[in-house]
């Protein structure tokens, strides 16, 4: 009866999965209004000379010209590149090595894991403070080593323009490698045990098994980890502020800080927006193709 009529016609496409669509409204709003809308807004205003308040008085590419002429921006970019490169490499390498060690059916695994993971619970502000102090030549490691007799020992990365970014890197790795280790460990645990056995029977040395067999099998984990690390790298800000405030001089400036400083301290929104747009462009160049492949292509359901 009713079924006859109701069932025979294809119902309105919009009404199918209605609940799912309703439930997705926050996501859609966030994606469209905040991420797309906000980004578009930012890009638009980067072509204006907005100062303290946004206003639509276009000045073409002036902000970008100025941006790329600013030594501080160039240094920021360079720092981000160095920091990003090494933090990617070291996070992955250290995280993986630790995970591999943890995967040796060791005792006290829980203890070790907790120890490595706890820094992740601390904010960058806290991390920055602690390491600022440990790296302070008057109180920290340098003074300790000197007091042990090596009076020529020099270790003051935060006060040396040339290596300050590495000082920040130390703190960043301390904070972040635990999580990477966890991710890697989870990945290692997901590897079929028979692969290990096969490699042993084949007489492949352990390190070779890791390098040639296991790591290539962990592509998914590496990608997830990469996303997490990379999204953190682009945003690095608090850590620098807490540890060096960009100093000495402007030696440890990073793009996110440039954006913040010019938007709010210098009250030059246009400049800040131009800098953010550049950051977005960089991110987009790296991320969009990947994200499309990973989620957009309608491929697989995990």
């Amino acid at each position, binding site marked *: 009866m009713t079924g006859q009529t109701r069932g025979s016609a294809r119902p309105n496409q919009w009404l199918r999965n209605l609940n799912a669509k309703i439930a997705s409204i926050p*996501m859609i709003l966030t*994606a469209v209004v905040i991420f797309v809308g906000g980004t578009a807004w930012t890009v638009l205003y980067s072509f204006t000379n907005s100062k303290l308040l946004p206003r639509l008085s276009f000045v073409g590419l002036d902000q970008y010209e100025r941006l790329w002429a600013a030594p501080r921006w160039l240094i920021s970019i360079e720092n981000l590149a160095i920091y990003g490169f090494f933090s990617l490499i070291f996070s992955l390498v250290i995280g993986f090595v630790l995970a591999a060690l943890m995967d040796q059916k060791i005792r006290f695994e829980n203890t070790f894991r907790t120890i490595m993971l706890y820094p992740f619970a601390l904010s960058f502000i806290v991390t920055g403070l602690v390491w600022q102090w440990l790296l302070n030549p008057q109180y920290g490691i340098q003074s300790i080593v000197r007091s042990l007799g090596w009076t020529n020992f020099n270790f003051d990365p935060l006060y040396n323009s040339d290596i300050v970014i590495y000082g920040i890197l130390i703190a960043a790795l301390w904070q972040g490698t635990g999580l990477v280790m966890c991710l890697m460990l989870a990945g290692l645990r997901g590897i079929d045990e028979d692969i290990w056995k096969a490699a042993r029977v084949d007489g492949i040395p352990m390190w070779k098994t890791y390098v040639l067999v296991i790591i290539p099998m962990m592509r998914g984990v590496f990608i997830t980890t990469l996303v997490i690390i990379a999204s953190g790298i682009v945003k690095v800000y608090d850590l620098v502020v807490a540890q060096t405030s960009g100093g000495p001089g402007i030696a440890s400036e990073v793009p996110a800080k440039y954006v913040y400083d010019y938007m709010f301290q210098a009250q030059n929104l246009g400049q800040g927006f131009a800098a953010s747009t550049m950051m977005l462009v960089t991110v987009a160049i790296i991320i969009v193709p990947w994200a499309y492949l990973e989620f957009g292509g309608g491929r697989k359901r995990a």
Partner: protein
Amino acid sequence: MLNLVANNSTVIEYEAVPGRITSGPRGAKPRRTLSRRNIVVYGTLFVVALYYLLPLYVMIMTSLKGMPEIRIGNIFAPPIEITFEPWVKAWAQACTGLNCDGLSRGFWNSVRITVPSVIISIAVASVNGYALANWRFKGADLFFTILIIGAFIPYQVMIYPIVIVLREMGVYGTLTGLIIVHTIFGMPILTLLFRNYFAGLPEELFKAARVDGAGFWTIYFKIMLPMSLPIFVVAMILQVTGIWNDFLFGVVFTRPEYYPMTVQLNNIVNSVQGVKEYNVNMAATLLTGLVPLTIYFISGRLFVRGIAAGAVKG
């Protein structure tokens, strides 16, 4: 490992009595507990553990020292005279401007911010992830991709537009506004986690529930939720950590009466009165980190399990 052990075993060339094995020499069981492999593994882990623990150790030790001892002292030395003064000061007395109630006020603010933000952001993201994993509708993937890319956008870029949006909604400066902000910025990673997790659950379960007549919400609450403890733990840990430790949003999107603990911490640490009171700073730092740390120590095991379930299958 293979190479290391191989040296240990003696190859026993056995004089064959045709067709039969006599009691023959035995390959003694090599002692493996102290093998070189174990020394390397445990040695490395031990050294690494030291690296991770050192800052914590220094923080604790310093927070228990008096200022004079700090000035003369070695940061690694345990306090000669233990004092809890810095803790008291950090908690209840340290000043910012005119307010001299230390972190205590910020603590409750942080609780008031963190609890609803965590709950709401996880609730929203888990429903999203569920919808994406099980009820894929046209265009969902597009929005999701945008969302994931959003995870890479520096917060600073978004501050201004969000200020405008919140202002238009009339919730700027309120707790509601801050909760919305946390929900928005937590969404990409959380949604990814939940989506992966739910997609990893057997699809047949979902189908069975649909045949049983359960709808979108019934399936979510009755079937999916009870199976998702690990991923909820992960999400909770990530969010508690993130929101509790947040400084930027706490300071930009609220008014002082809601300032979270981190703002207070920043104020205490940056309100230098004469010399930096390292002991108070460290105590304040530890106090601020206490909540997320506790959660980590309690639920670390579930965290790894949840990560394995939610993050790994990209």
